[in-house]
């Protein structure tokens, strides 16, 4: 029974651990073990939040970064599923291209940002496209992984019932591979958000990335870290929604 008690307390303990780490950092900086000019005091980071809200249009930036990330991840999901199904259906294509998908994950797309600027213009589209391109690989890889792990007999049931390709996709492949697809989607969000913020930072456009860039130029360390905290908040937002979605769709298996 106490085991379940611990289990219930787990999320709270996780938060507690993070808070404790922050407190430890605070102490370490105060005690001068850690250089306070390289890492800001956690308390100052918190204290700088209101300032950011008042002075820096944080809400609009937050919405912008979140929106770009959402668009990139959604596109990656749709395209990744499509690619996934193609690679899965045609094993020869899979053998030919799966390693190349992995190479896509290793391509430093951010460094080629001028190309994207030329192709997609100076605007959110460029950011979304780079986010999308970097989020695509994990979705494809995880989708194919999930499809390939499906027990053959479940597919045979589908075939014996003469499912159309679309039915097979939506009624068997996707539900059976759902945990893998969700992992792919998680990674896609991580990759998309990193790149969205990175590009915003690089071309000085849009949301939180630009803010981080400006604040760090100003050597506003607490503000910079607080802005990064806001990026974390964007990911919290997405993952809370994602977890809820997974709980609904993927209950008990």
């Amino acid at each position, binding site marked *: 029974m106490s085991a379940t008690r611990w289990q219930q307390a787990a999320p709270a303990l996780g938060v507690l651990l993070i808070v404790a780490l922050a407190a430890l950092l605070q102490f370490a900086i105060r005690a001068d073990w850690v250089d306070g000019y390289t890492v800001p005091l956690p308390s100052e980071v918190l204290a700088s939040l209101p300032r950011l809200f008042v002075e820096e249009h944080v809400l609009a930036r937050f919405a912008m970064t979140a929106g770009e990330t959402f668009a990139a991840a959604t596109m990656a999901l749709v395209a990744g599923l499509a690619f996934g199904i193609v690679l899965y259906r045609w094993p020869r294509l899979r053998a030919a291209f799966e390693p190349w998908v992995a190479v896509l994950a290793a391509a430093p797309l951010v460094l080629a940002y001028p190309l994207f600027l030329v192709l997609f213009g100076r605007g959110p589209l460029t950011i979304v496209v780079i986010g999308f391109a970097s989020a695509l690989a994990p979705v494809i890889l995880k989708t194919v992984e999930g499809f390939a792990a499906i*027990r053959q*007999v*479940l597919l*045979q*049931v589908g*075939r*014996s*019932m*003469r*499912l159309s390709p679309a*039915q097979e996709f939506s*009624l*068997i492949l996707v*539900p*059976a591979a*759902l945990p893998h697809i969700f992992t792919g989607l998680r990674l896609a969000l991580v990759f998309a958000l990193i790149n969205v913020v990175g590009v915003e930072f690089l071309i000085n456009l849009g949301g939180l990335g630009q803010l981080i860039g400006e604040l760090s130029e100003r050597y506003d360390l607490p503000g910079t870290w607080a802005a990064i905290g806001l990026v974390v908040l964007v990911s919290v937002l997405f993952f809370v929604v994602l977890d809820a979605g997974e709980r609904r769709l*993927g*209950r*008990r*298996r």
Partner: protein
Amino acid sequence: MTDAALLSVSRVTKRYGPRNGGLTAVDDMSFAVERGEFVSVIGPSGCGKSTLFHIIGGLTQATEGRVSVEGEAITGPHPAIGMVFQEESCFPWRNVIDNVAFPLELAGQGRASRHATAQGFIDLVGLRGFEQRHPSELSGGMRQRVCIARTLAARPRLLLMDEPFASLDEQTRMLLGDKVLQIQQQLHQTTLLITHSITEAVQLSDRVIVMSYRPGRLKRTLAINLPRPRTADILVSPEFGTYVAELWNDLRQEATRGLAEAEG
């Protein structure tokens, strides 16, 4: 092998290539099943029954030979066929009632109506009260029954079953066998049952096909001339016993060969 046969299997051979170990699983099998007939296939473990089952179902291509259902040559799954697989094949992400209602959902039936139909088949296999459970919360035999109910719910004209009662106790198996028989008669279904239970084969079938051990050949066909319905009396009758003994004898040779060859 009349043309009128609902199912006709002619000269079917299946060889697994050298990459898969190089083995003839089914060798030159031919037989036919008439409309409304109940035929069982029986043979020792590993003799090629499931391979044959997959070929008839249109899921595996035979190396040689041809299968036709309702006069059409089989090239892929045929709409008249419903299959119950040897391996457990419930959809783990669907609860019991949605598993059973699956073929009805495919047919585009509304939720209420398909659940009503599914409920009937759930009751039939003795799973009332478990409608909302997911397969992971069922026992092995219960999962197998879900799969049976799912295939029955599609009301196939030709029912193919591969050891569907394997993980059921003998009583449940008998009761369930009877029910399947009833449905078959009501719906004029044709059934091909793969089984390893001799009594089950004799109890349910019009004919029993015995397969030999490696390569899987047709060893003999035995017509079961017992009146229907086969009541408890018939099951203890000497005729019943004779059929069982005869099959038993055939199979003992094959099974012994199977195990002995290995030890040789």
